[in-house]
């Protein structure tokens, strides 16, 4: 009898939980809608993950809501992890939000599938002229602008100033720094258990694709399904330079090649590496996390044979083509992208804002962090890379390029074999 009562109690608890859970119905389905007072609500799926960025976005949205009682914006906070799968399901199921935060290299495939609104004529003209052609190019698909490019990162060299000075080097202070200069400093600072460079290249493809543009190494030509690949001297310049530093000069800390960028920072703070190549966003992390008295600087942007050019893969704000409020969404995004607002977001996220006005505003916000001068300078050389226009690029990157670069950086294959793997792998994927 006791067991029957137990089972009954469990069953009752189950029914109660079900009743409770069925009450827990979400509110963020089928995009925004009309309120009882006639005001419309736009759903804005934001991926901002840093607390300071979330606060900045919330403040901007609050300002908008206060000024626009008829068009209210509701933030739907989401995370970066798994966003692609979530968006596929949302678009397919017709429940995507009105405004979508993401990044250029990933959002373009949704544009190709016809899920994103054409914003070309809705973008504020002043904003349009304040962002470089190269960056607009990164969010243009079939001659339509399908996203507002907001913030970007570049690859920067951060250096332990004390170790450079101890090796007899003055901190480079020009507008750019050549790879030869980097190699020289790395050689001079490699001594007594300290390596010249710590470079987190566990996932090397993005770095290679971006820095290779400095040598006119675009890898791809053509767009969509018709894109073709060419892996020649220009494309191999950066991998070969890194390989040379790792295995001929022996100036790159070998373990770091298998680590993520963030993992290498401990070696940088500990004085085990004199320099580290990182995403520019690390400038703020280093400023916050470095041990007291750690004397560090950001070196000028790396310059290849074609200049200090890197790939622009900006974070983006797009509008769902099925939204009832495409124009209102664009109005809000024009507000969000205004110089001061974008500067707040970029500064909180330690990323480079896309517009000139926002870069000027960030300079003021970051006046006490000298690394920002170099970070912002590196933003000048960002251009839309060819791979953003290539269908199946993500598949090629994950299944072909990353393992091939990893093998090359582990000294398991030659640069000729690397070129063959990259080209043949693309041929297999492109069919």
């Amino acid at each position, binding site marked *: 009898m006791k067991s029957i009562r137990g089972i009954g109690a469990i069953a009752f608890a189950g029914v109660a939980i079900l009743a409770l859970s*069925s009450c*827990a119905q979400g509110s963020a389905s089928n995009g925004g809608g009309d309120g009882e007072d006639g005001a419309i609500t736009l759903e804005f799926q934001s991926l901002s993950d840093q607390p300071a960025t979330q606060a900045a976005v919330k403040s901007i949205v609050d300002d908008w809501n206060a000024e626009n009682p008829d068009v209210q914006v509701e933030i739907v*906070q989401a995370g970066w992890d*798994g966003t692609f*799968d979530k968006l596929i399901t949302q678009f397919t199921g017709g*429940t995507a939000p009105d405004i979508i935060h993401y990044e250029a290299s990933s959002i373009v495939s949704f544009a190709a599938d016809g899920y994103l609104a054409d914003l070309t004529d809705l973008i504020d003209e002043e904003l349009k002229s304040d962002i470089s052609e190269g960056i607009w190019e990164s969010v243009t698909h079939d001659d339509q602008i399908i996203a507002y490019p907001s913030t970007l990162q570049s690859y920067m060299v951060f250096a332990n100033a004390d170790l450079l000075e101890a090796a007899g080097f003055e901190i480079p202070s020009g507008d750019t720094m050549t790879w030869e200069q980097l190699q020289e400093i790395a050689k001079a600072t490699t001594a007594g258990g300290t390596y010249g460079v710590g470079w987190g290249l566990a996932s090397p493809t993005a770095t290679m694709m971006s820095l290779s543009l400095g040598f006119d190494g675009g890898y791809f030509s053509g767009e969509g399904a018709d894109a073709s690949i060419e892996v020649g001297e220009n494309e191999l310049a950066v991998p070969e330079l890194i390989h040379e530093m790792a295995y001929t000069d022996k100036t790159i800390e070998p373990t770091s090649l298998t680590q*993520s960028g963030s993992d290498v920072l401990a070696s940088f703070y500990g004085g*085990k590496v004199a320099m580290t190549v990182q995403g520019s966003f690390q400038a703020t992390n280093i400023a916050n996390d470095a041990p007291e008295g750690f004397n560090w600087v950001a070196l000028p942007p790396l310059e290849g044979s074609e200049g200090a050019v890197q790939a622009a893969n900006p974070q983006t704000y797009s509008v769902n083509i099925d939204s009832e409020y495409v124009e209102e969404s664009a109005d809000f995004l024009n507000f969000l992208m205004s110089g001061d607002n974008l500067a707040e977001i970029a500064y909180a996220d330690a990323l480079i804002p896309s517009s000139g006005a926002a870069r000027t505003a960030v300079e003021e916000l970051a006046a006490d962090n000298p690394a920002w001068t170099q970070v912002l300078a590196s933003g000048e050389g960002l251009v839309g890379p060819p791979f953003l226009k290539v269908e199946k690029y993500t598949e090629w990157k994950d299944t072909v390029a990353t393992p091939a670069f990893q093998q090359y950086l582990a000294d398991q294959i030659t640069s000729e074999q690397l070129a063959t793997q990259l080209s043949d792998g693309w041929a297999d994927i492109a069919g």
Partner: protein
Amino acid sequence: MTNRRPWYATVLMYTALAAFLLFLGFPLLWLLSASFKSTGELNSLAVNLIPAEWDFTNYTSALERQNLLPAAGNSLLVSIATMIITVLLSMPMAYALARLKGRLRAAGTVWILTSQVFPTILIIIPLFLVLRSINLNDTLFGLILVYVTFTLPFTLWMLQGYVAAIPAELEEAGEMDGASRITILRTIILPLLAPGLVATAMFTFVSAWNEFFLALVLLQSPELYTLPIALRSFLGAEGQTQLGPLAAGAILATIPSLIIFGILQKKLTGGMLAGAVKG
């Protein structure tokens, strides 16, 4: 007659056990250690299990941000509901599968195996559309239904093994004493099945507690997010990880699982000792 174990065998046995415990426990200990370290210490090259200075800000930070507590409540609700429904459904179904003969049993077995073949990613969009058509997308109830559907085949498979291990003679003895099928199930099978039910319950709870992908895709509203989604929010773009708060959040997230295990483990051992047939 005594069979004394040689001393070196005992030493080897305990060494192996200690190594195994260390292997299993070290990541958890490291996580615990990381949760009490300051950002500066986490970024240093020092390898120390005991933090140089105990820093509790990771816990306050984890609790204040990413709505960790409401997310834990949602996870608990979903996991307990999934556990109860799955156990209640799989108990009679497993009995039927284990005891029935003929085509129905074969069909049931094939269905269970077939359902395990499809990867989640393949069915996520149809699943989303089905849930949407019955207004159950973006609800915890919809998520519970999905979890039950996904865990049921495995728990059925697991539980029918337990039922099959119970001697049919016990049921026949009950029948000879005039007991009905329900009485037999309640008074003979159920007590002997307790360890199996407890194992099933634990498996179901942990599966639902840890599940990320389905919850990520099926839940749209932040107020419905479960704990794994809230914890993933500590991982940002470009691989940035807020390690301290993430470690603190992960430690907090293991507590309910440990409590459930603590409660159910006694039943698991107790049930195993309840032998039915004396030799």
